[in-house]
């Protein structure tokens, strides 16, 4: 008989099975194999043998002496049991640990989303690290104007002259396109015109149509999915359909792209092709944003150098038509959201890397606090576990095993917190998203990199929270009965660290909040209340006087004004010249256009000269300009001197200053008040209605009616100017609130830690304090003994935190044009408050000692 039983499975079986059983098992298997090899082919018998042998891999046959899995599961089972028992024995500290870690992880989960959304701006484009936006800095006299836009031929010119540029792209934004859908008009505010090669620069996800050819023919349009849904009557086969604009231009749909992600600096609704392919060669239309893609062997320094040469080549040494020198500034695609605040941006870039950094630091701090709590509370329990570790060591436990036991305990605690915080995150997700303005869904953020990050962070937490307790506990000797009391120093340092940070954070929150309050309560210099505003379309502008007169007849309406640019918007920049004794001087500053009711509507103060006058009507003749105080100051005139001076701009425009208005904050309080010129216009795009009553509902319905009668069917969207103005601070407010919320979390976690520690100290010193009481110690004495440690530590923390806070927040406040002063009270009051809270926490817990009857504690000694 040839023995061809499969040897490998026998080998594994031998390794797995109990030593006493294996011979019988092998024998039986062999016997059956021999029986069956007579009956079946050898291979079938072997197969059946293997199958049968596999049946022996079950728990009941396991070799308990050798199997690592068996030993591990038993050991882990024991660790688990002990962990649970210890946790239940010290309910307060387990609860504090669990709470701290759960809150910490939850906060991190939320913060991480915020950070991710901001950080990931424009990173969804395939070649995001090789795409630059080319912007221009223009010199006007002494001042520099930073433009986001450039001439239409710029991109092509650069790509031809710079060898490092591989491709170029260009965009022009139309914010007021209306398309016809049957008889309805569909408004769009983000239509971009682009040349054919867009996909090579900014790759969107094409749902249909040919991405390479779609935009090569004039009057082609590529819609996003959501606009297609909104615009098309029959959406089943969009490509090839023709849509009509309100001015009767017809566009052929050549493609559909998926809606672009929200975290991008451009938010297109549609792309249209160039109506004249020749514009890429022309240099006179300054309305285009230019992108370039650089080659892979790109070198930033060389590129910057070649751009300087190219600038001279394209724009000339001095620039044309009265302009100064032009400097090309490349901006990395991923930087635009954070750094770019130029004139004529396509969207406001409100990202701020400081906040990303701030929130990241906050995240680390929160985690650190929870970890410190864990380390402190666990090491505080060391003496409880002397016996346990002693017994384990006596039975031959290695140091490594003890270490792994305590790591296991930390791991258990962390896993539990992860589960809880996941539940909280999932439950609170929608609330947080809408609150913090997060528009990415959690699934869009979870890619494998993010998951890897999360796992890495959790491992870090495990390492930092487990390493000190486990090393300390594993160093206990088998027969050690007492711990040296010196070991407190490390804990004190940790507490000191915690308290200093809490102080710092509390001061920070106070300062940020005060600054925010200060900014919103600042005198704007005009009355923003009870002003309703809207943007008029061309039809409404044509009928402006009709609308004006009808509105003025309403009893609730005080004033109706029109202007080009209402407060809160970015005004265009212009350069103005005027004559002085020393010759011609130049001021580069924003200017707006307004009619003769503007000053009245906003209740601006005219401090010298006069307002625009009424009599010219809308004949378009210039009737002088107003300037603000800052302009007069800049020019060195008193307001009275300024009236009557002549301003010039360019070659043809010239006008007299007729009045000076008191400074007012045209843009937000982030910016200092600049010199400003108000020029006269009638029928500007912005309509401002100053209301006398606050019964807006009635007023609005009346306005709506007038609108329908005169301005066509289209209903205008009205907003309140104060709301509109407030919008500028919305993000600030959200950030300040988020910051405050998470700061309080930090303080809460550290206070909870102190609470846990005091609980533990109370347990340990109960006897000592009872003896003191028997000997006549008063309540106050006992309380002060119990809280002394924390008192001293919080005092030290204050000494560390206050100067640091002064330094840090002074630097922060310098970012604001209008900032609060760092009064000593701002620094000390929060710290005092916190110290009181700390002592209160400790005292509350210690009060237990005061209350107990010493006889009860001492009787079983």
């Amino acid at each position, binding site marked *: 008989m040839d023995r061809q039983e499969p040897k490998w499975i026998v080998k594994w079986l031998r390794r797995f099975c109990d030593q006493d*059983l294996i011979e*019988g*098992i092998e*024998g*039986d298997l*062999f016997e059956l194999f021999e029986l069956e090899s007579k009956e079946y082919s050898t291979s079938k018998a072997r197969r059946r043998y293997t199958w*049968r042998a596999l049946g022996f891999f*079950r728990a009941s046959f396991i070799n308990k002496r050798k199997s690592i899995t068996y030993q591990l599961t038993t050991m882990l089972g024991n660790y688990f049991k002990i962990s649970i028992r210890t946790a239940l024995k010290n309910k307060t500290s387990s609860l504090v640990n669990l709470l701290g870690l759960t809150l910490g992880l939850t906060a991190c989960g939320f913060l991480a989303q915020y950070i991710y959304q901001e950080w990931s701006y424009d990173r969804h484009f395939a070649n995001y690290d090789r795409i630059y936006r080319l912007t221009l800095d223009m010199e006007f006299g002494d001042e520099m104007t930073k433009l986001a836009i450039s001439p239409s031929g710029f991109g092509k010119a650069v790509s031809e002259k710079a060898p490092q540029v591989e491709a170029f792209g260009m965009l022009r934004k139309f914010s007021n396109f209306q398309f016809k859908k049957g008889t309805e008009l569909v408004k769009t505010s983000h239509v971009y015109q682009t040349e054919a090669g867009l996909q090579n620069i900014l790759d969107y996800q094409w749902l249909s149509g040919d991405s390479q050819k779609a935009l090569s023919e004039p009057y082609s349009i590529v819609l996003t999915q959501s606009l297609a849904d909104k615009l098309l009557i029959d959406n089943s086969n969009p490509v090839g359909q023709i849509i009509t604009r309100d001015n009767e231009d017809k566009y052929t749909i050549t493609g559909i792209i998926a809606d672009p992600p929200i975290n991008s600096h451009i938010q297109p609704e549609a792309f249209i092709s160039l109506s004249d392919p020749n514009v890429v060669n022309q240099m006179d239309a300054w309305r285009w944003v230019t992108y370039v893609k650089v080659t892979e062997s790109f070198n930033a320094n060389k590129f910057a150098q070649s751009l300087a040469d190219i600038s001279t080549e394209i724009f000339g040494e001095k620039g044309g038509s009265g302009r100064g020198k032009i400097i090309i500034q490349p901006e990395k695609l991923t930087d635009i959201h954070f750094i770019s605040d130029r004139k004529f941006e396509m969207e406001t870039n409100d990202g701020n890397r400081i906040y990303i950094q701030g929130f990241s630091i906050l995240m680390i701090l929160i985690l650190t606090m929870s970890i410190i709590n864990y380390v402190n509370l666990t090491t505080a329990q060391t003496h409880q576990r002397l016996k346990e570790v002693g017994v384990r060591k006596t039975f031959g436990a290695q140091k490594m095993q003890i270490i792994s036991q305590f790591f296991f305990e930390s791991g258990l605690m962390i896993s539990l917190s992860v589960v809880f915080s996941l539940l909280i995150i999932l439950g609170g997700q929608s609330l947080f998203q809408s609150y913090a303005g997060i528009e990415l869904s959690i699934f869009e953020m979870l890619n494998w990199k993010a998951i890897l990050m999360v796992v890495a962070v959790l491992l870090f937490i495990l390492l930092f929270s487990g390493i000190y307790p486990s090393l300390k506990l594993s160093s206990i000797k088998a027969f050690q009965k007492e711990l040296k009391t010196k070991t407190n120093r490390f804990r004190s340092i940790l507490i000191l660290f915690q308290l200093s940070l809490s102080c710092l954070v509390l001061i920070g929150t106070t300062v940020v909040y005060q600054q925010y309050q200060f900014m919103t309560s600042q005198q704007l210099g005009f009355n923003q209340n009870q002003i309703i505003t809207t943007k008029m379309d061309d039809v409404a502008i044509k009928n402006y006087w009709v609308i004006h007169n009808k509105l003025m007849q309403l009893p609730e309406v005080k004033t109706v004004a029109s202007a080009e640019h209402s407060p809160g918007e970015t005004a265009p920049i212009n350069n103005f010249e005027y004559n002085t004794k020393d010759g011609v001087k130049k001021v580069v500053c924003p200017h707006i256009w307004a009619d003769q009711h503007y000053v009245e509507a906003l209740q601006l103060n005219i401090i010298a000269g006069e307002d625009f006058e009424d009599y010219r009507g809308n004949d378009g003749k210039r009737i002088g300009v107003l300037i603000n105080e800052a302009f007069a100051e800049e020019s060195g005139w008193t307001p009275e001197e300024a009236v009557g001076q002549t301003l010039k701009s360019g070659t043809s425009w010239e006008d007299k200053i007729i009045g000076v208005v008191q400074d007012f904050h045209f843009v937000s309080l982030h910016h200092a008040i600049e010199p400003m010129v108000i020029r006269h216009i009638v029928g500007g795009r912005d309509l401002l209605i100053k209301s006398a009553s606050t019964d807006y509902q009635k007023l609005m319905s009346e306005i709506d009616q007038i609108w329908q009668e005169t301005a066509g069917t289209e209903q205008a969207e009205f907003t309140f100017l104060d709301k509109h103005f407030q919008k500028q601070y919305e993000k600030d407010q959200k950030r300040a609130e988020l910051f405050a919320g998470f700061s309080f979390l930090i303080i809460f976690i550290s206070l909870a830690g102190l609470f846990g520690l005091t609980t533990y100290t109370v347990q340990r010193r109960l006897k000592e304090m009872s003896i003191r009481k028997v000997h006549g110690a008063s309540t106050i004495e006992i309380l002060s003994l119990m809280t002394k440690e924390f008192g001293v530590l919080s005092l030290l923390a204050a000494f560390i935190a206050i100067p640091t806070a002064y330094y840090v927040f002074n630097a922060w406040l310098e970012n604001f044009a209008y900032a609060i002063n760092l009064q000593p009270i701002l620094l000390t009051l929060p710290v005092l408050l916190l110290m009181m809270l700390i002592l209160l926490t400790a005292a509350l817990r210690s009060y237990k000692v005061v209350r107990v009857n010493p006889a009860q504690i001492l009787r079983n000694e």
Partner: protein
Amino acid sequence: MKGSQLGELEEIILLTVGALYDDAYGVAVMQDVEKRTGRKITISTVHSVLKRLEEKGYCESRYDGATNERGGRRKHLFRVTTAGENVLHTSREIRNGLWNAIPDMAFNKK
């Protein structure tokens, strides 16, 4: 004693071990159970049940002398212990008692 209950399969195998008397080892038990009851059970199940019975104290086991058969492996032989005998008796008595308790009417009806 924990787990002193005798399961149905355990009972059958214990009885088979008794029936085979001096030659009760895995394969033999398996074949005998199949022959008598028509139930196909795997060899690993047999071993597992035998081990459990031994842990409960109803069987004891030994290895017989070396042979050249079975690739030189000895047979792992089982024998019913007194405790095993008792539990089989108890089980039988319970059944007998129940059988006796059934009135004749119950099964004769149909």
